[in-house]
């Protein structure tokens, strides 16, 4: 128990910090209120440090399908969380900050602070709670834990979207996001219930052991299989994949850009952590070649991956709004990453290097790359705003607003160019080193058709990413376009810093500094289930589970009356430790 609590130090740090900012953010003194951001940043850095085994002796690897995911996944969340945090100031409570006036005007004084109208405290707290949920996802070893962690990731984001601007479109985005989120949660919860029903346990190790036993006894039973497929379809909401993707562009457009950047990374990572854990629990030892996921899950993921990539890329071409383009690109990237999940550890030929990885390592590595590149693109949108004649401000929206940015504001312009080129996967940049292992893992696992579709989609993506890169670089701004108000830089300069950090990251990680990241990715892809390990754990952990589950694949009909039958039979309810057959005999 103590060992398990020890693995939660990063989350505990974030929790303490979240409680602290909830109090600090309500202070009437501006300088104390301004401490919210540093507190969050400090907590995230400490959490990252602890995740990587800081303080020596604190080992946060867990037992489960992917033991090292807990450590590196949490560290990834901490680092990218810090970059996301730099975008947060100014999202809520702008009226309590002094607003810079137009050219030649004095700054407008802030409103007097009213705690009841302030959102700073809860916004920062929700930010930390959501990241805490994501960290918990990475360390999950049980379906109950996974469900709660996924919900902890999502519930705060619903509020963050809704309060991110005072406009009606944020409210609409919040409602769409919340309702579809609840639908997605209900679907994967039902999937989890069926997995529990089919295997008799919610512990991922025990589930794996039961699946191995079922497969040996003739086949995985249909309830377990249906459970996994439903869980994956429900999780498609979190990763913005096809059957549940249609909220994405509306929500990203309606939310403020910093929150959209948050949505594009945090719930998506939570979904991918969950899908990686579930598929690793199933194992890639089925199919004709013995290196595939079990048939139904394989087919479901295959169809989802192909549709997600294609729909995301084709619809992105038709868009004019930057945030909608990035939303569809986020959908397409989920499709790319699913290729790595389908390929599994069989891909990459077992040899992990920069250019060829096992499918799971590739997915984890790509998540980091995507997080870094994507924050850069959203940071540019967040750093620019259109100031109207009446003094109100709004975010820039259309690609045309980026024109000539490299000339007028070189830092932001080049950040956009580098991020867009990185997301496209141009060779010297980070996106290339992220995407290539996905290709090689697909080839290594023999899914040639999937890899070809991935290649075609990457080519389609060039159209809209090059538009995002060309607008600031090659086009010049027409003065007649500034009818709606002139475009100025946001007074919150930390946002520019976030963009700059991610642009530097896209270049630096690609130019050799990505070595530690690469080896981290390699270790994340290692499964925690060695065959002998599975046998031993299954035997000593939950003796009743395996025999009970073994019944379910038994073809021989038995006289069993398992569910409650209206008669009071308390003795059998308590007979958990009894021999399996005796337990079922009470009905006769």
């Amino acid at each position, binding site marked *: 128990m103590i060992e398990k609590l020890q693995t939660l130090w990063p989350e505990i740090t974030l929790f303490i910090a979240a409680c602290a900012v909830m109090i600090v953010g309500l202070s009437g003194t501006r300088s104390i209120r301004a401490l919210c951001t540093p507190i969050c940043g400090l907590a995230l850095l400490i959490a990252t440090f602890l995740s990587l085994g800081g303080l020596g002796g604190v080992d946060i690897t867990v037992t489960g399908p992917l033991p090292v995911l807990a450590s590196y996944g949490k560290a990834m969340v901490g680092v990218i969380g810090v970059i996301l945090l730099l975008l947060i100031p100014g999202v809520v409570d702008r009226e309590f900050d002094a607003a810079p006036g137009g050219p030649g005007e004095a700054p407008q004084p802030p409103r007097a602070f009213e705690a009841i109208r302030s959102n700073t405290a809860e916004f920062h707290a929700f930010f930390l709670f959501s990241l805490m949920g994501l960290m918990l996802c990475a360390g999950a070893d049980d379906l109950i834990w996974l469900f709660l962690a996924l919900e902890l990731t999502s519930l705060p984001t619903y509020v963050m979207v809704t309060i991110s601007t005072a406009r009606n479109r944020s409210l609409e985005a919040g409602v*769409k996001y919340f309702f579809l989120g609840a639908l997605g949660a*209900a679907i994967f919860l039902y999937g989890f219930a069926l997995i529990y029903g089919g295997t008799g346990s919610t512990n991922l190790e025990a589930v794996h052991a039961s699946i191995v036993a079922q497969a040996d006894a003739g086949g995985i039973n249909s309830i377990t299989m249906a459970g996994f497929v439903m869980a994956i379809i429900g999780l498609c909401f979190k990763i913005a994949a096809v059957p549940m993707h249609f909220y994405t562009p509306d929500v990203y457009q309606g939310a403020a850009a910093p929150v959209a950047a948050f949505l594009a990374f945090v719930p998506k990572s939570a979904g991918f952590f969950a899908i990686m854990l579930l598929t690793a629990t199933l194992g890639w030892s089925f199919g004709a070649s013995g290196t595939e996921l079990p048939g139904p899950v394989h087919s479901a993921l295959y169809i989802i991956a192909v549709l997600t990539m294609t729909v995301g890329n084709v619809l992105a071409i038709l868009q004019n709004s930057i945030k909608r383009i990035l939303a569809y690109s986020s959908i397409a990237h989920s499709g790319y990453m699913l290729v790595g999940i389908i390929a599994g550890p069989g891909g990459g030929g077992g040899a992990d290097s920069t250019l060829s990885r096992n499918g799971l390592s590739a997915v984890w590595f790509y998540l980091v790359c995507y997080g870094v590149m994507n924050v850069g693109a959203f940071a540019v949108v967040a750093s620019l705003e259109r100031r109207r004649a009446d003094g109100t401000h709004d975010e820039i929206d259309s690609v045309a607003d980026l024109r000539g940015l490299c000339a007028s504001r070189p830092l932001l312009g080049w950040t956009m160019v580098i991020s867009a080129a990185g997301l496209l996967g141009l060779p010297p940049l980070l996106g290339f080193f992220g995407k290539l292992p996905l290709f090689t893992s697909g080839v290594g696992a023999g899914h040639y058709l999937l890899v070809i579709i991935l290649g075609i989609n990457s080519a389609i993506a060039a159209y809209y990413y090059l538009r995002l890169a060309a607008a600031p670089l090659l086009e010049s701004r027409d003065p007649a376009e500034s009818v709606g108000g002139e475009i100025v830089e946001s007074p919150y300069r930390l946002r520019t810093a976030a963009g700059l950090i991610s642009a530097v990251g896209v270049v630096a990680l690609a130019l050799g500094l990505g070595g530690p990241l690469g080896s981290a990715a390699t270790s994340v892809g290692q499964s925690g289930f060695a065959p002998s390990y599975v046998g031993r754990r299954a035997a000593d952990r939950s003796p009743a589970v395996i025999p009970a589950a073994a019944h379910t694949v038994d073809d021989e009909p038995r006289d*069993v009356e398992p569910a409650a039958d209206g008669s009071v039979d308390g003795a059998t309810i308590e007979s958990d430790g009894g021999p399996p057959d005796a337990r079922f005999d009470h009905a006769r």
Partner: protein
Amino acid sequence: MTGFASAMSALTGAATLTLGQSDFPHPMHQVTLAHYLVLSALLFGIGLIGFITRRNLIIMFLCTELMFQAAGLALIAFSRFHLNHTGETFVIFVLTIAAAEAAMALALVVLLFRRRETLDASAWSELRG
């Protein structure tokens, strides 16, 4: 009556779990796992269809609640079937999450109603691409 039982198991795809349905002494007096699963699947289906077809925000939210409770019912039935308490434990947590979502949904509904004086989801379609 045997036909009824096997139809139920076929309906849920639960043939492997509902062992020995063929020789029930009094099928109508005994409630098996399959009955619970069918009820749970029906609740889930009603919730899903309701969510897709209805446009009133409160009804849509109740439909997702229905789907949550369908999962809860399945968990309890499985818990009794496997004779361990994991499923029941799970349900407690599910209820907690459902309560949190209810709080959030009602807060959103109140906000929306103040702005537009309607709970029709189609009144909110400013965002289109």
